[in-house]
C-alpha cells in the first residue's frame, strides 16, 4: 500500500480515542518493541499508547536511539574518567557531541557516527546522508563545522559487490562533503571478507566555536517558541512506522535486530550548506536558546530530547509542520527522517529576528510549538491531542538490557594459531617480491583514487591532509593555533584480542596525531559490532570498551562521545569487532607541523623510534601472503606512546624533525615506501647488524615512528631520546640524488617501480 492510497480524512488516533479503546490491538512487535517494552509503555501512560506515541516510543527505544544493549557498558567510560582528564572537557558523553577547550578562547567539538546499513542498500545516498547527519550534530553544538573524515570498510577489494558499494560510497561522501565546503582531512579504507554485506561507513565531523558560544540541546523557559527550520518534512526514511498504516514493513539501520526493507533518504547538501550559514548567523545574533538537529527518529527525537533536557513541558502543533507530501498522518510526521532540518528554542521576542535571518538564507522556518509549564510533551494534530507523554520516558528512560556476555571458546584456538610457523621470505629476491606485492595489496596501496574525490583545500585552513597520518587544520589565523585529528582501528587485532585491540586502535590514532607535532587531547569513537544478542559479540564489545577506557586513563585523555552500531552481521557471522577510535589534538603553531614525506631538507638522517619485535599476529603480511588470522596482536605500551608523543612534540617545536611517519599495517617496509614516494625522494637504508630483515621490514610492533632529522640536528635529537630513554636507531639516510629505495643487502627498488605498485591498484580495481 502506498501512501497516496490513504484516505485523507482518517481521524487521528487521539489520546481520547486511546482511552476509549483500551484493548485495540497494536502492531508493537512489528515496530520492534518487545512484549515487556510495550507493557512498560502502557504502565507509564496508564493506557494504551496512541499510534503516534507508539511510533515515538518504538523509534526512540530502538537500539540505535536508546543504546539499550550498550548503555551498561558505556558507563565504564564515565566511571573511569578522572577529574584531571575531564578538566578540558566542556561537554561530554550524553550531548550531541563532545566539546573540548583548546585555549585562546576556542573550543572544538568532534564526533564519529555510523551510517552502515543505509550505505549498503544505496551507497551514494547512504554515505551522503551519513555525512549530512554528523555535520548537523556538530552544528547543534553551536559550532561551525570545519572538516570531515571518513573511516570506511568494505568486503574483499575484488568482489563484484565492492565495485558497486565502494565507488558509490566514495562519491556520496565527496558529493555531500564537497558541496558543503568542508575539507576532508582523513579517514581509512580497509578491506576484509567480514564486511562483504556489512560495509562500515563511519563519518567524523569537527567543529570550532568560541568557548562561550556553546549551545546545549535543551528547552526551558515557559512561553519560549519551538522553531522548526530547514527542509520540509516528507515521507522519506519513515522506518518502521509505515507498519501502522499497512503490512509493508520498512526498517532503519538497527531497528529490532532483524533485517528489514530499506527506507532510503536522499540528501540535499545545498540546503544543508545554507543551513550552516543560517545557523552561524542565528548564533552570532544570540537568537538561539537551545538547538537540536533532526536525525534518526526525526521530530520524535528532537522534541522529546529538547523537552526532556529542559525543565518544563512542551506543546507541539503538527499542523504547523511544513510538509512535502500531502496527507501525512501524525505518526509519519513525527517519525519522518527527512534530512537537513533543525529545531531551535527561541524567545518570543526574538522570533521575528530569527525569521528574518532564515528569510535572508531562503530557509523555510515555522513556529511549531512552545515550552509550557506543564510536565508532559503534548502534540496536537488539528484539535486532537495525539501525544501526551512524560518526555524523559521517551528520550532518556528507555529500556536497558543486561545482555549475556560470554567469551567464545574459539578465542583460545585463534590465539594458539601462531603466525610464526608461516613460511617466510628468506632470500633478497623473495623479500623484494614480498615487499612489492604487499605495497600493491588493497589494504596497503595508495588511497589517492579515493582521496582525490574529496576537496581538502576549501576554507583555506588545511595544513595537512591525505596522505599524512593525521589531518591538521588551522583554527586561528592570527595566532596559528590549530588542531589535528586521526581515526584508526585494526579490527584484525581486535578479533584476536578485543581488549588489546581497542588499546592498539587508540594507540595508533594517538600516535597519528602525535606525528604531526600536535598534542593529543581527547577521544571519540564509533563502535561497530555484530548482534548484541550474541553473547560472544557482547563479550567483544565489553572487552573493547574496557580496553579503550583503560587505555584513555593511561594516556590521560578523555572519551568525549561516540556512537554504537550493532547488528553488523550476515546470518550468524558478525563483522570483525571494529571499534574505530578518533583522536583530537592541538598544536600551538601550525607552521610547526611535521610533514610525512622525506626530502624537505637537504641531507636527512632516518631514525627509527621504538622497538621492533617479532610480532605477526593479525599482521598485514599474514593476511596478504597467507590469508591467516591467528596468534596474539602486537603488544602495546601506552606509557611508551606518551613518551613518543612528547619527543615528537619537542622535535617539532625545536625544529629538530623534518618529517615523520608512523609504522602500522605493513611495518617498516610500508612506511619506507610511503615516506619516499610522498617525498618524491630516494633513501638508503641499512638495517642494524644482525637484524633479521624479514622481521625488521614486516613486523607490526606498536609504538614506532620513523623520523627524518636534518643532519645538523641528529646529535641533539638522539641525545634527547637517550635522555628520555626512548629507543632510537639510525637506519639510513635520505638521498636527494637517488631515485630508488635501497635497503642494503635486500633490494634496491626504483621509485618508479614502487609507485606503479602502490598507485596502480585502486584504479585497476575501481575505474
Amino acid at each position, binding site marked *: 500500500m502506498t501512501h497516496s492510497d490513504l484516505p485523507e480524512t482518517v481521524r487521528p488516533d487521539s489520546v481520547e480515542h486511546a482511552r476509549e479503546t483500551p484493548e485495540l490491538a497494536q502492531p508493537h512487535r512489528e515496530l520492534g518493541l518487545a512484549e515487556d517494552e510495550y507493557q512498560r509503555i502502557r504502565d507509564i501512560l496508564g493506557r494504551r499508547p496512541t499510534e503516534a506515541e507508539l511510533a515515538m516510543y518504538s523509534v526512540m527505544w530502538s537500539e540505535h536511539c536508546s543504546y539499550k544493549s550498550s548503555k551498561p557498558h558505556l558507563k565504564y567510560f564515565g566511571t573511569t574518567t578522572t577529574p584531571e582528564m575531564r578538566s578540558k572537557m566542556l561537554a561530554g558523553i550524553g550531548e550531541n557531541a563532545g566539546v573540548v577547550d583548546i585555549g585562546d578562547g576556542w573550543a572544538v567539538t568532534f564526533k564519529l557516527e555510523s551510517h552502515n546499513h543505509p550505505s549498503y542498500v544505496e551507497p551514494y545516498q547512504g554515505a551522503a546522508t551519513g555525512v549530512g547527519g554528523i555535520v548537523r550534530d556538530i552544528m547543534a553544538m553551536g559550532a561551525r563545522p570545519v572538516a570531515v573524515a571518513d573511516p570506511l570498510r568494505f568486503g574483499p577489494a575484488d568482489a563484484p559487490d565492492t565495485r558497486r558499494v565502494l565507488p558509490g560510497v566514495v*562519491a556520496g561522501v*565527496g*558529493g555531500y562533503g*564537497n*558541496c558543503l*565546503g568542508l575539507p576532508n582531512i582523513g579517514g581509512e579504507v580497509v578491506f576484509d571478507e567480514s564486511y562483504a554485506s556489512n560495509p562500515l561507513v563511519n563519518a567524523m565531523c569537527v567543529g570550532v566555536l568560541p568557548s562561550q558560544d556553546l549551545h546545549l540541546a535543551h528547552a526551558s523557559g515557559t512561553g519560549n517558541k519551538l522553531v522548526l527550520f530547514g527542509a520540509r518534512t516528507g515521507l522519506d526514511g519513515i522506518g518502521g512506522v509505515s507498519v501502522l498504516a499497512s503490512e509493508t514493513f520498512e526498517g532503519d539501520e538497527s531497528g529490532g535486530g532483524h533485517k528489514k526493507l530499506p527506507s532510503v533518504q536522499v540528501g*540535499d*547538501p*545545498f*540546503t544543508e*550548506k*545554507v543551513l550552516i*550559514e543560517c545557523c552561524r548567523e542565528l548564533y552570532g545574533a544570540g537568537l538561539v536558546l537551545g538547538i537540536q538537529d533532526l536525525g534518526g527518529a526525526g521530530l520524535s527525537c528532537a522534541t522529546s530530547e529538547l523537552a526532556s533536557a529542559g525543565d518544563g513541558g512542551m506543546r507541539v502543533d503538527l499542523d504547523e509542520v511544513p510538509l512535502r507530501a500531502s496527507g501525512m498522518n501524525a505518526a509519519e510526521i513525527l517519525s519522518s527522517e527527512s534530512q537537513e532540518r533543525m529545531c531551535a528554542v527561541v524567545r518570543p521576542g526574538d522570533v521575528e529576528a530569527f525569521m528574518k535571518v532564515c528569510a535572508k*538564507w*531562503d530557509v523555510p522556518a515555522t513556529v511549531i510549538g512552545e515550552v509550557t509549564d506543564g510536565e508532559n510533551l503534548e502534540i496536537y494534530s488539528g484539535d486532537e491531542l495525539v501525544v501526551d507523554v512524560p518526555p524523559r520516558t521517551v528520550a532518556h528512560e528507555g529500556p536497558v538490557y543486561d545482555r549475556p556476555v560470554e567469551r567464545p571458546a574459539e578465542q583460545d584456538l585463534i590465539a594458539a594459531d601462531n603466525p610464526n610457523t608461516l613460511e617466510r621470505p628468506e632470500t633478497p629476491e623473495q623479500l623484494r617480491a614480498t615487499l612489492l606485492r604487499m605495497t600493491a595489496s588493497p589494504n596497503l596501496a595508495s588511497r589517492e583514487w579515493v*582521496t*582525490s*574525490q*574529496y*576537496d*581538502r*583545500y*576549501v*576554507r*583555506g*585552513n*588545511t*595544513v595537512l591532509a591525505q596522505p599524512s597520518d593525521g589531518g591538521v587544520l*588551522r583554527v586561528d589565523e592570527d595566532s596559528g593555533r590549530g588542531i589535528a585529528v586521526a581515526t584508526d582501528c585494526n579490527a584484525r587485532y581486535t578479533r584476536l584480542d578485543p581488549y588489546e585491540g581497542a588499546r592498539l586502535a587508540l594507540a595508533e590514532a594517538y600516535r597519528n596525531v602525535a606525528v604531526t607535532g600536535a598534542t593529543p587531547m581527547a577521544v571519540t569513537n564509533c563502535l561497530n559490532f555484530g548482534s548484541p544478542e550474541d553473547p560472544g559479540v557482547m563479550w567483544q564489545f565489553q572487552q573493547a570498551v574496557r580496553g579503550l577506557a583503560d587505555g584513555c586513563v593511561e594516556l590521560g585523555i578523555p572519551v568525549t562521545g561516540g556512537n554504537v552500531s550493532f547488528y553488523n552481521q550476515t546470518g550468524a557471522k558478525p563483522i570483525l569487532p571494529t571499534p574505530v577510535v578518533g583522536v583530537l589534538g592541538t598544536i600551538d603553531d*601550525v*607552521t610547526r607541523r611535521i610533514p610525512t614525506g622525506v626530502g624537505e631538507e637537504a641531507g636527512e638522517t632516518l631514525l627509527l623510534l621504538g622497538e621492533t619485535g617479532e610480532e605477526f599476529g593479525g599482521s598485514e603480511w599474514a593476511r596478504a601472503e597467507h590469508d591467516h588470522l591467528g596468534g596474539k596482536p602486537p603488544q602495546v605500551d601506552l606509557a611508551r606512546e606518551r613518551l613518543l608523543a612528547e619527543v615528537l612534540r619537542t622535535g617539532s617545536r625545536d625544529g629538530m624533525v623534518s618529517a615523520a611517519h608512523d609504522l602500522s599495517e605493513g611495518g617498516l617496509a610500508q612506511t619506507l615506501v610511503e615516506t619516499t614516494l610522498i617525498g618524491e625522494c630516494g633513501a638508503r637504508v641499512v638495517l642494524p647488524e644482525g637484524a633479521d630483515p624479514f622481521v625488521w621490514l614486516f613486523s607490526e610492533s606498536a609504538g614506532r615512528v620513523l623520523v627524518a632529522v636534518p643532519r645538523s640536528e641528529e646529535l641533539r635529537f638522539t641525545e634527547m631520546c637517550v635522555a628520555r630513554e626512548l629507543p632510537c636507531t639510525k637506519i639510513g639516510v635520505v638521498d636527494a640524488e637517488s631515485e630508488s629505495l635501497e635497503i642494503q643487502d635486500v633490494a634496491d627498488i626504483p621509485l618508479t617501480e614502487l609507485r606503479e605498485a602502490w598507485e596502480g591498484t585502486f584504479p585497476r580495481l575501481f*575505474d
Partner: protein
Amino acid sequence: MTVATGARIGVVTFPGTLDDVDAQRAVRRAGAEPVALWHGDHDLQGVDAVVVPGGFSYGDYLRCGAIAKYSPVMTELVLATGRGLPVLGICNGFQVLCESGLLPGALTRNAGLHYVCRDQWLRAENTTSTWSTRYEPGAEVLIPVKHGEGSYVADEDTLDELESSGRVLFRYVGGNPNGSRRDIAGITDTAGRVAGLMPHPEHAVDPLTGPTDDGLGMFLSALDALVTA
C-alpha cells in the same frame, strides 16, 4: 606582509558559494581590500574589480552556474564589465561567467566522471591580460584543481579564435584532469579583463595551506593594473 594599495576587490557570495573566504584571504594577501558582495543585491559597492569564487551555487543541481547567472548581482556585473570592470571567475565562478555569456563555451562533466581534487601543473599562455601580467610567458605553476565539471568545450571555430587571439590564459600540463578541449584551463574575454579558470589560484597563496604560492600572481597582476590605471 600585506601592502595596502587602496584597491577594493569585490568577492561575490551566492547561496552555496564555498571559496569566498579563500578568495577574500587571497585578495587581502595581495594587498587589496576584499569587499563582500551579496548575490541578492543590485550593488557592486563601487569596487575596482570582482572575483566570482568557487563552490556549488544553488547546489549546481541543474547545471553548474545555471541559476546563479540570474542573480541581481550578476545583472550589475554584466553591465559593469561593459564599462571595463575586471572580473575573475574561478571554478564555479568560471561556469557562471560562461553561463552568463561573458565568456564563450561551457564546462561539462569531467571525462573521468569523478570529482578531481589534485595539485595541477599549468602553463601560463597569456601574460598580458589584467589577471596574468605577473607571469613569465610559458611559466609553469602548480595550483590545485577541485571540480566535477571542468571540461571546457566550445565549437572548433571558437576554440581556433581563442587560440589565435591569445585568449587562452592557462593550459594544463603534465596531464589533463578533466578532458578539457585543447587542455584549456582558463580563458579571457577579447579585452583581457574578464577571465575564467577552473584551477584555484586562491588556494595557492601560501605554501602552508596550498601546494605553492603560485596563484598569488593573478591577484597581484590585477592590482598592478588597478594601481597604474
